[in-house]
């Protein structure tokens, strides 16, 4: 009895530094932000403080920018399946007994490891429509092929290199301001540029390392048995590798969705300022502008709770689907 009380006191001593920090900077703020989201709190302007309860949330539903930026966030997440499939393919290639595996793995992981403002400035320079390396190559290729004259002689409007981060065009032909397909919007624009960069960064990154560990954990007897039965490489992948990797894939998909929904802030701040015409503004960047540029703390807090709810719901859906998938 005495020793147990002793342990409680010791536990409190060990826990206290972290617990204080946790309560002050994590648990407390979570509750605080929920409370604030029911108010019209404005940090720097002298609007009288008021509890407006559901006011922020109702305003959000009628906020056309919020709807547009939600769609932008989803648009930018379209690169995720590509990156995950690529990571899987690379992991399977790297799981063979080849020479130089560590060198390949290091090179593939390099963009993830160095990701940040420096790499974004690099890609911003690469995408520069006048001076960037991409358009230098594309323009040279178009010149060599006489592509512009060719298309004009066929009655087209001519071809020119994309203007990348300055363009509202996109691969789906969506209009910038409204949710509909617009004429002349089809092409490569800022959002696609960010997706390409995202796939380049992520394809050989953490997901590939997780898949590598997953492939290494597949019992060799399973593969050998399949080979004895005369299964081809695709059959082995379909019936052995893929089902064995299901838990890894599930984890990666959940984490990618969570990351994607709250992502896009750094690119928007460093590379595009959320533009052109707001096409690269994600929910995270919208929250930043509302809270720290317009100082509408209440509204921003409501936004952040909507984002949290979306993440929560999607994680729960994934969990349901995942546990169904994993049970057989």
């Amino acid at each position: 009895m005495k020793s147990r009380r002793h342990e409680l006191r010791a536990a409190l001593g060990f826990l206290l530094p972290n617990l204080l920090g946790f309560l002050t900077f994590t648990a407390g703020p979570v509750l605080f932000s929920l409370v604030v989201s029911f108010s019209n709190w404005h940090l720097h302007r002298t609007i009288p403080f008021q509890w407006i309860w559901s006011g922020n949330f109702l305003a959000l539903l009628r906020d056309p920018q919020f709807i547009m930026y939600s769609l932008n966030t989803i648009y930018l997440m379209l690169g995720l399946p590509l990156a995950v499939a690529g990571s899987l393919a690379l992991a399977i290639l790297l799981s063979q007994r080849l020479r130089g595996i560590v060198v390949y793995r290091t090179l593939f992981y390099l963009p993830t490891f160095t990701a940040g403002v420096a790499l974004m400035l690099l890609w911003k320079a690469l995408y520069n429509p006048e001076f960037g390396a991409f358009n230098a190559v594309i323009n040279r290729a178009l010149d060599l092929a006489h592509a512009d004259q060719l298309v004009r002689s066929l009655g087209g409007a001519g071809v020119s290199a994309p203007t990348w981060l300055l363009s509202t065009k996109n691969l789906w032909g969506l209009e910038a301001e409204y949710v509909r397909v617009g004429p002349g919007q089809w092409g490569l624009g800022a959002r696609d540029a960010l997706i390409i960069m995202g796939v380049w960064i992520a394809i050989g990154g953490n997901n590939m390392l997780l898949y590598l560990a997953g492939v290494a954990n597949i019992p060799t007897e399973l593969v050998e048995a399949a080979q004895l039965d005369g299964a081809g490489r695709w059959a082995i992948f379909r019936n052995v590798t893929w089902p064995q990797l299901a838990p890894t894939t599930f984890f990666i998909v959940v984490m990618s969705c969570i990351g994607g929904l709250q992502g896009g802030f750094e690119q928007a701040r460093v590379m595009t300022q959320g533009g052109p015409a707001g096409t690269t503004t994600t929910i995270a960047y919208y929250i930043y502008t509302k809270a720290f540029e317009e100082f509408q703390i209440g509204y921003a807090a409501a936004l952040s709770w909507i984002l949290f709810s979306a993440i929560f719901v999607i994680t729960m859906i994934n969990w349901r689907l995942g546990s169904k998938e994993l049970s057989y």
Partner: protein
Amino acid sequence: MAKSKDFAAWWYRRGRFGASHIVLGVIAVTMLVPFMWMVLASFKPLQEVEQLNPFPSQWRFDNYSRVFEQVPFARYYFNSIFIAAWVTFLTCLTSAMAAYAFARLRWRGRDTVFRLYLATLMIPGVVVMIPNYTIMVKLHLLDSYTGLIVPASFGAFGTFLLRQFMLTIPPALDEAAAMDGASPWQIFWDVVMPLSRAGLVTLGIFTFLGSYGSFFWPLILIKSEHLRTLPIGMLFFDTVYGRQTNLIMAASVMNIVPLIILFVAAQRHIVRGVQLGAVKG
């Protein structure tokens, strides 16, 4: 007969491996080319950056010293490393202590508190950023090292990671130490901590990385120039001197060189750390 069959198998395998090397090689080059462009552009005179020729006609090594002349880049370095070192030290220490309380001591309410910790892992950072910013305003810690270091030093994540790690250490060891009359602190410091070294190294590396690259919190907190970290300093440099692509690239190279050194030095820990789930998000 058997020999020719072996030869066919060898040839088949060679062909397959050759094809794998070609695919892997192409992707490796795709990964590498932007970095090469960055390094080469950082040595070019400005008017050559936009040219297709990858190599500079004259190597401008002074691009690097010019970065230091235009912005206090050494200060950015110092700030980033100083802050990251403190955040890493505090996170490892407080997380390890808390993890010990969760993994090794028995007390009422332990699992409830731990579940509270776990529940916050799913919350997006931006939810807490807004109240934390207002807390910093109230405490007059905007624009200070304390404000940059302290809120970043108490992640629930480190506690979770180290708890998992400590659960794998046989409890017989601390029971034996307790029999010998060791206090909980001695057991923690002399028995559990040395055995948790691998977990601490992993947590340390990823905490350092996270702090070195952190962007959102310093961006909203830093107002004055002498506190700017590398990411914030680079953003400022790009906003003011953005036309000088060669200098921006020189700064970017200097930004990622410490990361590459860290990766080469600690690759084993990093790869294993990722595979253990040491990376959030």
